[in-house]
């Protein structure tokens, strides 16, 4: 008999079921296959042992099997609806596992199943066949014992197998979703770094430079080479030295310098003592790109970009400062492309150092104006060194 609470909670249960319709269909088809196989097996087994007609055995076995399935899944659904209803009542979102949350109610479901399943099943089968089976309360009857044992074993095996299968399936679905998200993030990272506009403009400049100044064109081609290689492999390497990080930034800025001409001035300031410090590769790249793209490139007169590294007690401070348009000049642009770059840096810092690192973006705060992006990392980082 279903509990009154489960009955009242039926409508929300229906919505929970609707939300997990695909999983429900998968579960239902698996349950059906299991039930049919088990019932046929039990009927064959019984008729082989006591020699009764296979037809009658099938009817009894199916009637009991079916009522067990109805009781177990009914109770589980009711339980899922109840938990979701309670969560909603407490103002929490519905359980992310949806219909699957009902597996927590599987123990009461099993008990109910053992109590109700055989009674209802035998009752139905008696109606269909016109037989009168002995009461199940006569535990001394061997037939009763066989029926109860088979019911308990059968439902235990099916519930264990089905719940394991479903758990595996949802774990696989979660893993696939995570994999997909990771791939998308990598693609977006690559796309933002290998921005086609930057690439084609750089190639266009190189094309002209080859005619005007071949040695300089060759030097620029080498820079482009290093920049592309670093960009393509950045997500795979763990750490590189700060000196190498500054070299990559210098490559990018040399290419931008070729494009922007006198509109771009560059200052790189890396103290000798900090050259060997390990940092995540291309950490500064999105910040430098933002400074160019949103600060200096759209400014008619251009300006300066200064990148400096300093030790501040237990912290390593990396600073990218430009004298460009400033933060309030480009809020819509920063919200899209630039916003992604900043988010990328923040995410990487959070993954690598947790709360011990951070990124701030602020107006430069002096007469020259512009923007300063500051990254703080732990100076001695044994954990990820």
């Amino acid at each position, binding site marked *: 008999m279903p509990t009154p609470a489960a009955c009242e909670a039926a409508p929300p249960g229906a919505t929970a079921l609707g939300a997990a319709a695909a999983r429900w269909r998968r579960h239902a088809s698996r349950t059906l296959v299991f039930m049919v196989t088990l019932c046929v097996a039990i009927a064959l087994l019984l008729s082989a042992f006591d020699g009764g007609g296979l037809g009658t055995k099938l009817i009894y076995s199916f009637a009991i099997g079916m009522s067990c399935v109805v009781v177990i899944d009914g109770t589980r659904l009711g339980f899922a609806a109840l938990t979701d209803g309670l969560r909603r009542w407490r103002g929490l979102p519905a359980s992310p596992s949806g219909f699957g949350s009902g597996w927590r109610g599987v123990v009461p479901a099993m008990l109910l199943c053992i109590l109700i399943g055989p009674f209802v099943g035998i009752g139905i089968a008696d109606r269909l066949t016109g037989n009168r089976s002995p009461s199940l309360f006569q535990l001394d009857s061997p037939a009763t014992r066989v029926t109860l044992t088979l019911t308990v074993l059968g439902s235990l095996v099916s519930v264990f197998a089905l719940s394991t299968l479903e758990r595996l399936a949802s774990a696989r679905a979660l893993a696939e979703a995570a994999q997909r998200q990771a791939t998308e993030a990598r693609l977006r990272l690559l796309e933002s770094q290998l921005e*086609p*506009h930057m*690439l*084609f*403009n750089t*190639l*266009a*400049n190189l*094309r*002209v*430079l080859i*005619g*005007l100044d071949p040695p300089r064109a060759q030097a620029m081609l080498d820079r482009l080479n290093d920049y592309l290689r670093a960009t393509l492999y950045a997500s795979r390497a763990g750490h590189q030295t700060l000196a190498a990080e500054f070299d990559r930034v210098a490559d990018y800025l040399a290419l931008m310098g*070729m*494009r*922007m*001409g*006198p*509109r771009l001035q560059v200052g790189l300031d890396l103290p000798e003592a900090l050259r060997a410090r390990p940092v995540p590769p291309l950490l500064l790249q999105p910040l430098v790109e933002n400074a160019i793209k949103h600060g200096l*490139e*759209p*400014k*008619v007169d*251009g300006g300066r970009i200064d990148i400096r590294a300093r030790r501040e007690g237990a912290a390593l401070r990396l600073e990218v400062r430009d004298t460009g348009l400033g933060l*309030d000049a480009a809020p*819509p642009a920063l919200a899209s492309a630039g916003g992604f770059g900043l988010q990328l840096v923040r995410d990487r810092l959070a993954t690598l150092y947790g709360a011990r690192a951070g990124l701030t973006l602020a107006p430069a705060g002096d007469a020259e104006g512009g923007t300063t992006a500051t990254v703080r990392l732990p100076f001695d980082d044994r954990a990820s060194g």
Partner: protein
Amino acid sequence: MNAPRCLIAEDEPLLAAGLRADLATLWPGLEVAAMVGDGARAVEQALALRPQVCFLDIRMPGRSGLDAAQALAEDWPDGVPFPLLVFVTAYDQYALQAFDAQAVDYLVKPVEPKRLAACVNRLQARLADRDGAADTLQRTLDQLRALLGTRTGQDDGAERLTVIQSQVGNLVHMVPVEDVIYFEAADKYLRVLTAEREHLIRMSLKELLPRLDAQAFWQVHRGTVVQARCIVSARRDDSGKVHLTLRGRTETVAASRLYAHRFRGL
């Protein structure tokens, strides 16, 4: 006819020099009247020098190539043939699709000599066709209307503006949008004019437009947006310029060539 002259607007010096060198080989008769590195100077120099051809980079500091084209089309003096415009861009799928759809001349960077040669041939043919020269302006206006229309068509994402907050010292004026008669761009600010007074807000017309109801607020100039129900009359003067009289304001507001077609009698 004198030797044709052109203007090159390109913010990257090497690319400007490269285009100039390639043009010198492919079109020796073309004189480069000016080379500028930003959109505002492109407009200023083109209006002053009146070249027959303008090469406009799309992405330039200050004012984009497209914005420069709009300003030229709006402010070009009457009776002077409008220059042939060629847009130059490195990579912009959407812009290129729109250019193709409107048969706009464009070059893709890096500019290949073969493509530049084809472009030069087209330009020379158009310049030679004296009758065609007259409707260059009309053709450009039609193209720009289509291009600008596609650019401002994406206003679903932005939140509708209902009240404008304008701060003066420590006082914030709350101006309901329906009380605004017109908006006018003024450098980095926007003038917001109601029947009673004028407010200044720190917002560009480009940021404002997607947040206004396009049915209620009409752009009539690159720097002016008018509430349609406040327009009393539109008067066309001898040179074809359109002046709008507005309910609640004594001054008139000019509608540019680009938007004057909205004020034709039915």
